[in-house]
């Protein structure tokens, strides 16, 4: 017998009971992290790679790359912390060496440190020994690659979500990371004045962008095609992408806006300011992460599909 004046309403009780059946466990904050970490690690890793390729002549690029890396991965990591149920326990994230999140936390922390060192070197000791700087760049390239790979694996190892459970996903994410990273890198480089960028690096940047976009387009097509013939939840995901509630994200965001349009603009040599193309590519990268995360539904146990339909 209740004597309390304000019972929690029946509607709220029902809302709680039904909330977790919506299926969304990871939301926009995680999508934001996947995108920003990919962008940051791709930019820094690519810049580091270019510097190694041009024998240490691309310092200006690596500085830009380090900033993009620091901000991208840094803000992404903050989003992750914000998303935690108990952010104040963040130091526990590295407690299980078998967990991809633990490994990933270490990897991205190292990347943040490397980016910070690169920036500090640029400001305080630009005359540092080329050998040391080279070693720094090797590490940066390696950890940049590692960061962009592990986020894909985070999703791909989940066997019960067939839309994610493919080795194609980490590959797709790496290509997307580097394509968004290179695009950000070159658009910042083109707008900044007084930069020394060796011709070799500039060439690789511009042709690399086109190549990565083309590769990504092919991979997305391949990804959708293989998922079409897979388990039910994968097919449902493809349907959501191609003609369902995620169609705008897929066609406008990923395919046309994020890949085809920038590709056509760059190949045709249309004089569009690079930041505009970069915005398209970045929006495409974000749409890709959003589309993949939203559509990755779990294979259902018997009766679950009906249950979801009947629940009021």
């Amino acid at each position, binding site marked *: 017998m209740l004597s309390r004046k304000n*019972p*929690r*309403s*029946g*509607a*709220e*009780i*029902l809302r*709680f*009971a*039904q909330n977790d059946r919506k299926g969304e466990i990871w939301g926009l904050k995680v999508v934001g992290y996947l995108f920003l970490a990919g962008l940051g690690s791709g930019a820094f890793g690519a810049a580091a790679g270019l510097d190694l390729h041009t024998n240490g002549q691309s310092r200006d690029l690596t500085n830009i790359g380090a900033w993009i890396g620091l901000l991208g991965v840094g803000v992404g990591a903050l989003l992750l912390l914000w998303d935690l149920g108990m952010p104040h326990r963040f130091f526990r994230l590295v407690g299980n060496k078998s967990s991809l999140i633990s490994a990933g936390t270490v990897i991205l922390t190292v990347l943040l440190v490397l980016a910070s060192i690169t920036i500090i070197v640029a400001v305080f000791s630009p005359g540092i020994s080329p050998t040391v700087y080279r070693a720094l760049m090797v590490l940066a390239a390696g950890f940049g690659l590692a960061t962009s790979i592990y986020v894909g694996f985070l999703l791909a190892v989940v066997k019960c979500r067939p839309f994610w459970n493919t080795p194609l996903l980490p590959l797709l994410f790496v290509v997307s990371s580097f394509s968004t990273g290179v695009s950000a890198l070159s658009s910042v480089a083109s707008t900044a004045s007084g930069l020394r960028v060796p011709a070799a690096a500039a060439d690789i940047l511009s042709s690399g962008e086109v190549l990565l976009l083309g590769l990504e387009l092919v991979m997305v097509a391949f990804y959708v095609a293989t998922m079409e013939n897979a388990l039910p939840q994968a097919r449902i995901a493809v349907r959501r992408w191609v003609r369902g509630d995620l169609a705008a994200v897929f066609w406008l965001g990923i395919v046309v806006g994020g890949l085809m349009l920038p590709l056509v603009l760059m190949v045709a040599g249309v004089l569009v300011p690079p930041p505009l193309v970069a915005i398209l590519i970045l929006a495409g990268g974000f749409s890709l992460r959003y589309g993949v995360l939203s559509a990755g539904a779990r294979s259902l146990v018997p009766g679950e599909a009906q*249950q979801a*339909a*009947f*629940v*009021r």
Partner: protein
Amino acid sequence: MGPAFLRPWYLHALMVKMGLRYELPYQERLKRIGEDLGERLHSVGSHFWDDQLREYQAMPEWHDFPGLWDTGPEYDLWLITCRSMQFAWGGNVGIPALIEAASMAIGHGGISLNTSTARARGIKNGDDIWVESPVGRLKAKAVVREGVHPEVVVATHMFGHWRTPVAKELGWPSMNPITRLSYKLTDETGGTSDHVRVKVYKA
């Protein structure tokens, strides 16, 4: 079967153990009660129960039950009710833990109708529908399923307990607003008819 500590739950085992009998024959008793009741009522000049008194028979007679509803052909479906297993009699519909349990069972929170019936009216699972009787109409969510006769729609009515505190915020439908009490539709046990002729259409 279940674990050992569950088996004495059922009454029959106890009846057997205590050497008790179920009361038989039920029909003769019913007839006796009917005669007794009739005498008492008539002795004080009460005749309101006369129709029902005729029901106290050992063997039931057939009545044109559907014919008791003099509604038009547009009211083509029967709205019937059922009990919820989670709530049984319904005095407990305000208990949140049971509301959570009931939310997992089909039929709560809406009015169940057959898949073909729904399709013929352009209704999909989860749509808002109007269930209208000659007395009034009621808005509810459609629960489209196979386990319902195509000419029947079902509301888990729970004796109207959905109006009680906590439960009333759930917005789960009760058939009370669209049925009426009448002697014509009351049987000898005092049970009123939890059926009504309705038509259903999308809201």
